[in-house]
């Protein structure tokens, strides 16, 4: 009986309606937190003593990078659940995650490279974080490519779930090998890594942005999930009712 909520997650109409109900909550709290975080980060917090105002891109860059990993993990966990319990909705979650994660990864890459111009004097440096972010982007592209390569939705779901699980095991290996590789070629990054503590006036907006971005991801995921469920269940009668109402 404690597991009924879990079993009900296997029912597409239930998931569709729950997602519909929850979306505005996540979307509004995300909007409020992101606006608050931006005000805190762009106006209230002081400029950095070394980087001036240039560091403020951190408030977008760091949450994007965090989400690029969180979304990949979510995708792999959802894929794993779909493989193990053959839960169709879990596969729909994984399918909805991929483009969101790829977008966050791209956002982290672009903001990182824009940040690099004032900091390093160049748009691109083979910094370990940027490099592993780039590799993560390729992992997303591969996942989406594999997903698109199959006509049959169920096979596409299960095959790409295997890839996501293999990928998520490899993400830390790739990341640490890139860090190891980088430490051979240049000294420790002069950037934000070495900064021991961040004053609360900078840290608080950053944390708010982290939570805000995560809630934003949840809202977008729920919206995409609804679309995904509708497409997958298009033959079902409840979908017709939803679409025509």
């Amino acid at each position, binding site marked *: 009986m404690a597991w009924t909520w879990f079993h009900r997650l296997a029912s597409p109409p239930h998931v569709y309606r729950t997602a519909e109900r929850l979306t505005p909550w996540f979307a509004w709290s995300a909007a409020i937190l992101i606006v608050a975080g931006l005000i805190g980060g762009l106006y209230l917090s002081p400029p950095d003593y070394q980087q001036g105002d240039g560091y403020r891109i951190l408030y977008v860059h760091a949450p994007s990078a965090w989400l690029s990993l969180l979304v990949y993990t979510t995708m792999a966990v959802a894929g794993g659940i779909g493989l193990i319990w053959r839960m169709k909705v879990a596969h729909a979650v994984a399918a909805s995650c991929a483009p969101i994660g790829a977008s966050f990864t791209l956002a982290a890459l672009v903001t990182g490279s824009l940040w690099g111009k004032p900091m390093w004097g160049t748009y691109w440096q083979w910094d370990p974080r940027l490099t592993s972010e780039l590799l993560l982007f390729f*992992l997303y592209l591969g996942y989406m490519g594999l997903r698109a390569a199959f006509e049959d939705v169920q096979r596409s779901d299960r095959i790409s779930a295997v890839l996501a699980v293999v990928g998520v095991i*490899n993400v830390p*290996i790739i990341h640490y090998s890139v860090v190891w590789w980088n430490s051979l070629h240049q000294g420790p990054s002069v950037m934000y890594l070495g900064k021991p503590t961040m004053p609360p006036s900078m840290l608080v907006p950053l944390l708010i942005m982290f939570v805000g971005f995560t809630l934003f991801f949840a809202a977008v995921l729920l919206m995409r999930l609804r679309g995904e469920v509708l497409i997958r269940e298009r033959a079902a009668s409840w979908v017709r009712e939803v679409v025509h109402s």
Partner: protein
Amino acid sequence: MNNVMAGEAERPLVSAGTSGTPSVFAVTSLMLARDLRLAFRKASQLVQPLAFFALITTLFPLAVTPELTQLRRIAPGVVWAAALLSSLLALEFLFRDDAQDGTLEQYALSGRSLTGLLAAKTAAHWLLTGLPLALMAPLAGVALGVQGAALPGILASVTVGTVTLSLIGAVGAALTLGVRRSGALLSLLTLPLSIPVLIFGARATQLAIQGQPYGAPLTLLAALAVFGITVSPLAAAAAVRINLE
């Protein structure tokens, strides 16, 4: 091809009449022997990746510079990029024939561990492509101006590294089994996962060329290989089963 397969069909994978069920080891070695025998009947498939490897190595002196002192500096990168691409080229043959004529289906239905059978196939694939590449790599090194003392290091690192490349490739080939023109997708899937091998392999090669001890990156390469042996056949078997459904 058909004649070869017909010849194989007359010879059962596991000869009946032996005491009950044969051991995993017996099945594995039979599989290994079968794959090697089939491959040697189509020698051109064996030679192609090697020719490709030699060709890529030839491109660099022509494109960069014929000066051996400069080539020696980029030799690790050239050798490893060439090894990565050549092993990718050979992946196409890994499961394709067996999938097309239904042999793979029979393996899955045989009641034997598909994981073990695929591990044996991967081992055969490494013996047929990885090992020859490793034997070729010192030759490429000589052509790129590497001194004789560094050649054992190149041999060792490429030998160990190609084990992991074959294992990653087996997962990639199993995932894309049902995809018609899988070449570009296969490289998109496997190359990001191969980055750690590239990093540690190129580092070991570089240290060997500089005459320094290269034990540390070689050990890390070996760790990757052990990890790959543990995980990759499981993932490949899962992917093959899904693709056969």
